[in-house]
């Protein structure tokens, strides 16, 4: 993509967006398609999935067979640039040295952010998920309902392309007619599990993922998404035609050079660029939002990482979409006489209420899967999952934790990796080879992904002394799971053990008897949200329902920071739906001269 350099910055823009991931990409798309002039500041380098993705490389072409390493933590080919649990030059700290009180912060510094390597699981929050407090008295309600957001789920699904099915299950919303692409068939192991866990009352249904199982309908969708805007329709139709359908062969985590899955860099940014309304400046690390004399946002000061100089860009409106915790950091670092505790923080809620997803995993080996007749099972990542199925039991008080989880699972004859000999019997030669052939593809793993309730012990603030390479104070995390999460993680382990037994498998290791042993550390599932929650009451929230800061109405936060809760449904589809909704509202406010 032809991006600009710092010298080509215009004197002023309508809107500056900080960050080019899911939230920033969606914001840039919606605004530029409606004629708004946008500058997008991205801390990472330019990144081109069309030329940089290692699609068909096997591990044997990678250093060390492509294993996870500290500088490439999700493997060599994973599409993460300058990122991971640590980012060069950009430390963060934890207030506690205890493992269970530490937060792990995964970041990426590249155009498109984490959307280049995310898992593409795209589940809608349901009606209960927007009103958790009303339902069980815990956490916080969102200031709007599922019905308010549903049209935007429809739009995002149609735009990015999501496969899946409508199953009519409780709090697992159906999409409107024509939104979803057909789901891929289930694999052999997935079908087997579905059949055998049915007796436990556990449903296995097609998952929703942001992948083009077939090409998008470029003739009809653009008019649905941009009624009355022929230019936007034309640009989108062309962008959709540039995307191929999935060819069911390569690991989506590496990114997709044929644009068959959603990455901001292949789906949001190309049409936004085609409008001519978007300038993207990479290597631009935002430090703070700048204000005018009235206390309104009027720009962003950032470090040009190429020259090390600090520069200020000007705009009528600023949108932060730097990822939830980073947006909170920018607010906390935007201190002024008017906002001594950080910008938009009169409620004191900036940095509070950070949430991740509860995660726990258990694996096993299934004799029935041994010696399965050879066939190609690549497909595209997960094809099925288990949605939370115990809403009624939970409501009736039969469970000792308040919120649900869904189950993702891996089966199948996937591309072998370096750990292939792990489970084999001692020996060598023909017998060893036979042992590996027999058991290859017979291993399964279940992962629970559950809702965490916000709590007062899980938050971030600025570290009083540590600064990044550019002298910007860094975040310090404070973390604690409550009993709800620990008990939920324990329930996951117990359930997975029952499922593995139900399919005649052998559980690997021992299921935990203590949730604290089962649960993954905070941040580990990389679904962090919160830190600037929305609300109806400006004293208890940072933004309104349109991601607009109460204290600074021309400042929006279009990533996961405004989330009031973190349902078991992975957050990114909701980030995009809310960003689109916020931008529609913003455009209207700008048209009316309110901003």
């Amino acid at each position, binding site marked *: 993509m032809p991006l600009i350099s710092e010298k080509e910055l215009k004197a002023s823009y309508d809107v500056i967006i900080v960050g080019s991931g899911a939230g920033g990409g969606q914001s840039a798309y919606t605004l530029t398609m409606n004629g708004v002039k946008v500058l997008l500041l991205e801390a990472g380098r330019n990144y081109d999935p069309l030329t940089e993705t290692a699609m068909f490389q096997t591990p044997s072409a990678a250093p060390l067979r492509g294993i996870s390493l500290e500088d490439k933590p999700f493997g060599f080919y994973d599409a993460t640039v300058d990122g991971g649990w640590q980012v060069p030059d950009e430390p963060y700290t934890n207030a506690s040295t205890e493992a269970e009180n530490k937060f792990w912060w995964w970041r990426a510094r590249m155009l498109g952010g984490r959307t280049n390597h995310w898992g593409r699981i795209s589940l809608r929050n349901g009606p209960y998920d927007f009103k958790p407090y009303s339902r069980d008295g815990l956490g916080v309600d969102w200031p709007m309902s599922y019905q308010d957001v549903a049209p935007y789920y429809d739009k995002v699904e149609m735009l990015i392309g999501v496969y899946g099915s409508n199953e009519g299950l409780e709090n697992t919303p159906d999409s409107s007619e024509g939104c979803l692409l057909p789901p891929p068939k289930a694999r052999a192991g997935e079908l087997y599990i579905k059949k055998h866990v049915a007796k436990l009352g556990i449903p296995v249904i097609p998952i929703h993922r942001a992948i083009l199982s077939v090409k998008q309908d470029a003739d009809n969708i653009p008019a649905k998404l941009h009624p009355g805007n022929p230019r936007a329709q034309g640009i989108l139709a062309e962008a959709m035609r540039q995307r191929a359908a999935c060819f069911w062969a390569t690991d989506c985590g590496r990114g997709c050079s044929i644009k068959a899955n959603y990455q901001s860099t292949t789906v949001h940014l190309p049409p936004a660029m085609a409008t001519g309304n978007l300038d993207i400046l990479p290597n631009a690390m935002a430090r703070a939002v700048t204000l005018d004399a009235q206390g309104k946002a009027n720009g962003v000061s950032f470090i040009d990482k190429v020259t090390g100089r600090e520069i200020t860009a000007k705009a009528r409106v600023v949108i932060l979409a730097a990822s939830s915790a980073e947006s909170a950091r920018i607010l906390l670092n935007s201190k002024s006489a008017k906002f001594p505790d950080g910008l938009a923080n009169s409620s004191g809620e900036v940095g509070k209420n950070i949430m991740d997803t509860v995660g726990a995993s258990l694996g096993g080996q299934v004799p029935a899967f041994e010696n399965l007749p050879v066939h190609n099972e690549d497909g595209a990542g997960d094809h099925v999952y288990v949605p939370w199925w115990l809403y009624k039991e939970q409501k009736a008080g039969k469970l000792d934790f308040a919120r649900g989880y869904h189950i993702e699972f891996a089966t199948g004859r996937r591309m072998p990796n370096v750990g292939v000999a792990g489970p084999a019997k001692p020996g060598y030669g023909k017998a060893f080879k036979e042992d590996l052939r027999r058991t290859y593809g017979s291993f399964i793993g279940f992962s629970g992904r559950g809702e965490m309730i916000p709590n007062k012990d899980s938050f971030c603030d600025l570290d009083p002394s540590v600064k990044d390479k550019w002298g910007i104070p860094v975040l310090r995390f404070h973390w604690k799971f409550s009993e709800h999460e620990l008990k939920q993680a324990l329930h996951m382990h117990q359930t997975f053990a029952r499922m593995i037994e139900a399919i005649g498998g*052998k559980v690997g290791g021992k299921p935990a008897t203590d949730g604290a042993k089962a649960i993954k550390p905070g941040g580990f599932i990389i679904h962090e949200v919160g830190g600037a929650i929305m609300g109806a009451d400006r004293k208890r929230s940072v933004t309104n329902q349109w991601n607009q800061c109460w204290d600074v109405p021309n400042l929006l936060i279009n990533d996961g920071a405004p989330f009031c809760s973190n349902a078991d449904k992975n957050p990114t589809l909701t980030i995009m739906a809310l960003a689109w909704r916020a931008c529609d509202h913003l455009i209207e406010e700008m048209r009316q001269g309110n901003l």
Partner: protein
Amino acid sequence: MTPSENPVRQMPRRIALKWLAAAAAGMALAGRLDLAMAQVPTKSGKPIGTDPVLNKDYKPGELWPLLMSPAQRRAAAALADLIIPPEEGGLKPSQLAVHEFIDEWISSPYDQTAKDRPVILAGLDFLDAEAQQRHQAVFAELNAAQQGGIADAICGATPATPAYRPQVRFFDRFRHLAAGGYYTTPQGMLELGYVGNRPTATFDGPTPEALKHLGLA
């Protein structure tokens, strides 16, 4: 704030899943890793970094120097070929440079892999010393039965006698790496029964034979 020492946590979720799955058969993989982690060798060469070029082929030795001596490499090639004998018409692991991968692994600037260095190098030296003692030749020059005699003493299939016990761990780690190196090559993948990584217009799901095998037809 380096992530915890638990190796599973260092892995991506999908790889961690595979790892957990691999550990699932009740074998002591975790124990083996812990054992191996006791060694902290010195680093050599530069790590890969956070932004390497991804879509090119890398060869062992390209990013950091390889540390095995010529004699150790010959022994490594021979042992890899013994552990994974070729199928009819197939290439041997050594012809697929599997021993070079093992050299790359133990020579790397990462503690995570270089912790195998002392175990593997000492083990390779042992092979030649043992071969000399038994047959007055280096391991690579022995015939299959002679090589097998040494391997049998240390492969762990039957309890090793005290004299050979220190080498059981070497054999296990070497086998782990040889299989990992071999079955991640296109030839090895096919042999295992992995037939993917090929674009197809549609995903057709399991074959009728696979469904039948599972009682789902």
